[in-house]
């Protein structure tokens, strides 16, 4: 989303920064952008050059005596550098690691100087609001959440991409009307909002208006505006594990709760999805989640357990099935499922047996085939091959 603004309308951001600088009396602004977005960087450079040429940046802007210039700083793409203090530390030339708050950036920010730091999407709204007035902006959205918000819609949905909606829109509207619903006639299961540290929202909240307060109340968040839709083929334990795997990898490693805590969480989830889960693990998991939320130094750690907590809250039955019945209801967790050929459906066409990379399928032509579960590596090739849908995951 931010990338598309930087690529599509960098001047909106530059203008907003100059306005912000004017408002707080700053003469210098920095744009921190990932080096992996070369087009955004290139266009920003061009835009800054143009703005300087037109006297929109630089010395004595519009003869007001106000000086403001903008520098670009490239980040190496660490997720944690989205955390404001880590971002500042990185701009200062240090390892991108968050600092304790307080002091807040507004008091001691970049190079220990008072700093305001805003996200690209926020800034891009500023020129519009100043031109069209606050009333215009407030006319969209809800009582507490004004304006619009861009979401990056993805996952099990027909229309993927960026969607901008007035706050207060329901999930149902976004997913079914804008997103065109779930492909392959599958059933909606949940949507993960707010990126890897957000939470998942189950079907029961499809009609809840999306705003900041509601998302927080149901255990999710607005965050980066990511919105990943899942259908009933998703295992929610595995889904949580997937996001946690990401945050564990992106933890900066400064504080104990996040550095070791999230890793232990991930190991617990691995244990559960591997079918080694023990009854007390669910309590341990929950306890550790709340501990990390309350004790981690920065937002990355404080929110990392959200996918686990929200899935535990709304899909506890799936966790329990993994732990108590050693079963993955969605048939995703490899250790907890096997492939089976239904004898009454199999026509004995031999297609699957020829496809199997490890020779796990045996049977004679026109006779029902069978899978040797000890040999099978669960690659799924047979299920794709079978034209009669005779093979099922169990």
């Amino acid at each position, binding site marked *: 989303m931010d990338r598309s603004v930087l690529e599509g309308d960098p001047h909106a951001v530059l203008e907003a920064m100059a306005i912000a600088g004017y408002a707080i009396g700053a003469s210098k602004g920095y744009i921190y952008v990932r080096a992996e977005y070369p087009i955004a960087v290139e266009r920003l450079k061009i835009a800054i050059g143009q703005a300087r040429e037109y006297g929109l940046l630089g010395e004595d802007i519009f003869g007001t005596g106000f000086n403001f210039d903008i520098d670009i700083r490239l980040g190496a793409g660490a997720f944690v550098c989205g955390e404001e203090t880590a971002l500042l530390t990185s701009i200062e030339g240090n390892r991108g690691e968050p600092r304790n708050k307080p002091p807040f950036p507004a008091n001691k920010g970049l190079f220990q100087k008072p700093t305001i730091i805003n996200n690209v999407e926020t800034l891009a709204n500023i020129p519009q609001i100043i031109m069209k007035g606050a009333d215009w902006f407030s006319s969209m959205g809800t009582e507490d959440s004004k304006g619009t918000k861009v979401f990056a819609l993805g996952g099990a949905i027909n229309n993927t991409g960026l969607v901008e909606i007035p706050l207060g829109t329901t999930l149902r509207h976004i997913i079914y009307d804008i997103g065109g619903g779930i492909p392959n006639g599958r059933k909606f299961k949940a949507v993960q909002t707010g990126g890897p540290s957000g939470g998942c929202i189950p079907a029961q909240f499809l009609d809840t208006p999306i705003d900041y307060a509601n998302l927080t109340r149901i255990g999710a968040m607005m965050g980066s505006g990511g919105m990943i839709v899942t259908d009933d083929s998703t295992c929610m334990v595995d889904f949580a594990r997937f996001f946690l795997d990401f945050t564990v990898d*992106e933890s900066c490693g400064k*504080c104990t709760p996040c550095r*070791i805590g999230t890793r232990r969480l991930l190991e617990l989830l691995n244990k559960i999805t591997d079918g080694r889960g023990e009854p007390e693990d669910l309590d341990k998991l929950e*306890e550790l989640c709340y501990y990390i939320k*309350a*004790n981690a130094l920065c937002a990355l750690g404080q929110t990392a357990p959200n996918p686990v907590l929200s899935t535990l809250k709304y899909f506890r039955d799936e966790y329990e099935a993994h732990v108590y019945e050693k079963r993955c209801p969605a048939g995703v967790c490899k250790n907890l499922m096997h492939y089976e050929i239904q004898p009454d459906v199999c026509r004995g066409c031999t297609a699957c047996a020829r496809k199997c990379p490890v020779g796990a399928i045996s049977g004679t032509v026109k006779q029902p085939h069978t899978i040797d579960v000890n040999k099978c590596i669960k690659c799924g090739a047979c299920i794709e091959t079978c034209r009669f849908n005779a093979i099922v995951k169990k």
Partner: protein
Amino acid sequence: MEMINMTINGQAVQVPANYTILQAAESVGIRIPTLCYLKDVNAIGACRMCVVEVEKARSNPVACLQQVAEGMVVRTNTPALRNARKTTLELMLSNHRMDCLGCSRSTNCELQSLAQEYGCDNHKFEFGEPLKPDIDDSAIHLVRDNSKCILCRRCVAVCKHNQHCSVIGPNQRGFKTHIASAFEMDLDETACVNCGQCIAVCPTGALTEKDDTKKVWAALADPTKHVVVGPAPSVRVQLGEEFGMPIGTNVEGKMIAALRRLGFDRVFDVDNAADITIMEEGTEFIDRVKNGGKLPLITSCSPGWIKFCETYYPDFLENLSTCRSPQGMFGAMVKTYYAEKAGIDPKDIVVVSIMPCTAKKFEAARDELSTNGLRTIDVSLTTRELGKMIREAGIKFTELPDETCDPFLGMASGAGHIFGATGGVMEAALRTVYEILEGKPLENLDIHAVRGTDAIKEATVHVAGMDVNVAVTSGLENASKLLDMVRSGEKNYHFIEVMACPGGCVNGGGQPHQPGYVRNFTDLRAVRAAGLYGEDANMELRKSHENPEVKELYETFLGAPGSHKAHELLHTHYQVRPMYRD
């Protein structure tokens, strides 16, 4: 000072407005556990041990960083907090090679004592394979075992901020984070100056000096060897800490007794060599002043400082005094003067020094300090290693009688003793230089302007019709600031004392460990230095040039200070060291 009123655990408290919650709690006798925080060194809020509850706050702040405020209501000891801290410890233990039985920090380890206090379940989160040792023992002075590191980063901070070296830091991120040098270089390949401050601040057994006690035990057990020992000035006011005695207690007599009982053939005193150092350095200073030599003269007693100068400020090498450090002089005198007097072949003598210092291990191995092809210091031990040997030998230290050193190189003046504190060398030198130049006794021997723990201390002393500007600093960050000012011409001095360790050798890298909760509220540098100044004040003999043994040494062996022979045996030279290896 502005004061505020607050409540801690229901107790009304009035504290200065700039206090942290940690300080405020301490002032009313409440200890909040800390691991990463260390006063004057590290304040990054990383370990999360010191979390507290503050009424109306959005989340639990860390007491080590959170400033107090009027009306603040703090709780430090709720079940939830205790549980959180316990979990923090248990997570650390889950990634720690718990090897307490043989660990050199056992009973003196901040992690161990907190784990014990909180009744931790050591294996609660241990899901993976047990950790294996993860060791860097490339350097001559220390061993890093990252399998015992809790990533508090106290070592990183002291190396970067207090010592201005920055040769270690966190590498990789998340769970893979570990402390190492850039590009995973061995410590030995970096511009580490061996000061050992990283060891001194480490709360666990992840950093230890390289243990050289085995070499000493072997020498002591070898009947063909004549084993001679000498402790440095600051050791006597610290060794007691190894045996639970109050910080700063002077245990000189017991220390000497213990060394004898360990089986050393001669117990000398490096403080005697400190007096010799003053004779040589004082003479060098007078010579440089009189004959237009390179000024300011900068002291050379601290090998951490010397290596720092060689590496980071090579343009000051000519300013360095050519005098060997007291350790260097001690070794040379034992293997020449004493060997001659005692009629022992220097090849059969093993010289052991007891030092506050890990950089002395590096210094002892310098080729330029060898005499007649022999190493002059065979083994350099830290105060901690000596404590360990005494314990291992079953010597009941606190019950020992007071004894005195053996003759020839065993007598020291008060000036020699105060070498251990920042400013001590300068004060000792001024006492002697003044009397030599003025030809009359100095009336007040206490030169307070150069004492104390200020970062940079300056004084102007009137000697022989001349204003001598002196400066004293300790800690390499402070030394850098001072040298930058000298380099830019902003400051002009005749004589500068630099000690690598903040506060001087009393806070050396080889000194007994004091836990964070002591260091955060006690200025170790000041308390330990007070022990040395106390000893000096109580002495008759307070000037190096009046030390009868030193006089005899010059009369019967060296000739005059600065003589050819003195130069050969007591002086040295330096080399530029590259900051980066190819």
